[in-house]
């Protein structure tokens, strides 16, 4: 489905990714873990077309999308729930969701997707007229995911969905992520600092350190890996 090869990205003189390669198979959940500043967000932003790589390529469903503008990449079926949620805070919940369906012309599809989003995040339905900035952190994350689902993606990237969210809501959100993957067959690339949780719900994992992939493997195996345990899983 998604295939990143030898991707290098820099911010001016600072190089953030140095030859990162990874793949996400159809219908799978893959996770990308790593510490602060490892380059996880940079990877996702490059896939989405917000950043331009200095070298390397991104292929999606067999086609090269490396240099497409961001809105074209969305049109191909890639959804991105960005770090820090980035909901449109002055817009209502309703308007946020309709912006999620910006490229969708088919009214029936929009209605269907809205129902799906309300089905998994019923709180959003109760708060449709509310200004999005007044939602709680967890609700904002639900809205960010809902907004991405309104675009009917085939592949969804989530950047630290557990960040700054009440522990009680984290498990809800992760359950929903599993559900989205299972019910809609959407392939997922999950970026997390909470490695335990990420390895639990994914089938395959990559570990990123200072712009390199330093380890990869089946999530079940990585959970038992002593090195990884020491570094990311709290011993």
């Amino acid at each position, binding site marked *: 489905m998604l295939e990143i090869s030898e991707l290098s990205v820099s911010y001016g003189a600072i190089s953030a990714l140095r030859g990162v390669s990874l793949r996400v198979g159809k219908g799978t959940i893959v996770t990308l873990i790593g510490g602060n500043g490892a380059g996880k967000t940079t990877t996702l932003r490059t896939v*989405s077309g917000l950043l331009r790589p200095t070298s390397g390529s991104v292929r999606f469903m067999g086609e090269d999308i490396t240099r497409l503008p961001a809105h074209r990449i969305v049109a191909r079926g890639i959804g991105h729930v960005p770090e820090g949620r980035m909901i449109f*805070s002055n*817009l209502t919940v309703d308007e946020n969701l309709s912006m999620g369906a*910006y490229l969708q012309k088919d009214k029936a599809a929009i209605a269907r997707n809205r129902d799906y989003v309300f089905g998994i995040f019923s709180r959003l339905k109760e708060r449709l007229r509310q200004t999005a900035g007044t939602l709680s952190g967890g609700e904002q994350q639900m809205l960010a995911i809902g907004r991405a689902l309104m675009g009917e993606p085939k592949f969804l990237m989530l950047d630290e969905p557990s960040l700054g969210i009440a522990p009680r809501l984290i498990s809800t959100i992760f359950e929903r992520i599993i559900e989205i993957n299972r019910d809609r067959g959407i392939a997922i690339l999950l970026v997390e600092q909470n490695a335990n949780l990420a390895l639990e719900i994914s089938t395959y994992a990559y570990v990123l350190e200072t712009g390199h992939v330093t380890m990869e493997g089946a999530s079940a195996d990585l959970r038992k890996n002593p090195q990884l345990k020491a570094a990311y899983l709290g011993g």
Partner: protein
Amino acid sequence: MTEFLQQLLNGLSLGAIYALIALGYTMVYGVLRFINFAHSDVFMVGAFIGYFVGGLLPHGTFWGGLAALAAAMAGCAVLGIVIERLVYRPLRGGPTLNVLITAIGMSLFLEYSGQLVFGATPRAFPAIFPAKVISLHGLIISMNQVTVIVVAAVLMVGLQFAVHGTKIGTAMRAVALNPKAAQLVGINIDVVISFTFGLGSALAGAGGVLYALNYPSIDPLMGVVPGLKAFVAAVLGGVGNIPGAALGALILGMVETFVDGSRWSTYKDAIAFAILIGILLFRPAGLLGRYRAEKV
């Protein structure tokens, strides 16, 4: 009392014109975080389009006046879109200062091209709308003032609808809030920016015609002073904030008119600006603006 109402009416019509210009400054700032200094010259071009198109149509009729107004709006929308496309867009992503300096250059370019093409001598603006004057218990109401207020009110209601009731308007607000997130939902930022320039420039074009109606002489440098006032009005209201720009413009128009009618009239601009500075000392983000650190 009559005196007061008279000034209120004058202030309202002046403020309405400032508002039409200020909205363009504030909308462009909202999506691009830069001040389009050439905006006041788009206003001037609007007045000239009104002058030439109005000259071809029968004077003193509503339909003729509205047609000239529509032509000025359409012409300015195209001009605004073209300026952004050819001049500002290639610089996007670079340092903000570069774009600002370029905007000043663009402004000078329009002013001096105007002098070259139209000549520097002021021209009398034709009475394109019906120009009756009604006297009501000593209150002098000119049809032109009424036209200004009504047209400005209609355009602002229309703008409110465009920004809140349409998909592209909602996309414009989304881009202003967070351009990255806007791209991630599939919004083509370029289209939204063109739309913003078109909309803002059309309003400035209407402002140019309405201004020329009430201050009936036009020249290529006519945009400078009202443009500066409208810019200040936008800052006063909270730059980037659409209702704020309208409010700031009305306040500025009122203050200016009332000071002008008092014995301090020589200092009207100084006093108007002193009041603005006073307000900004207490509300640095403007009346309706919310302070936020500059995004990187």
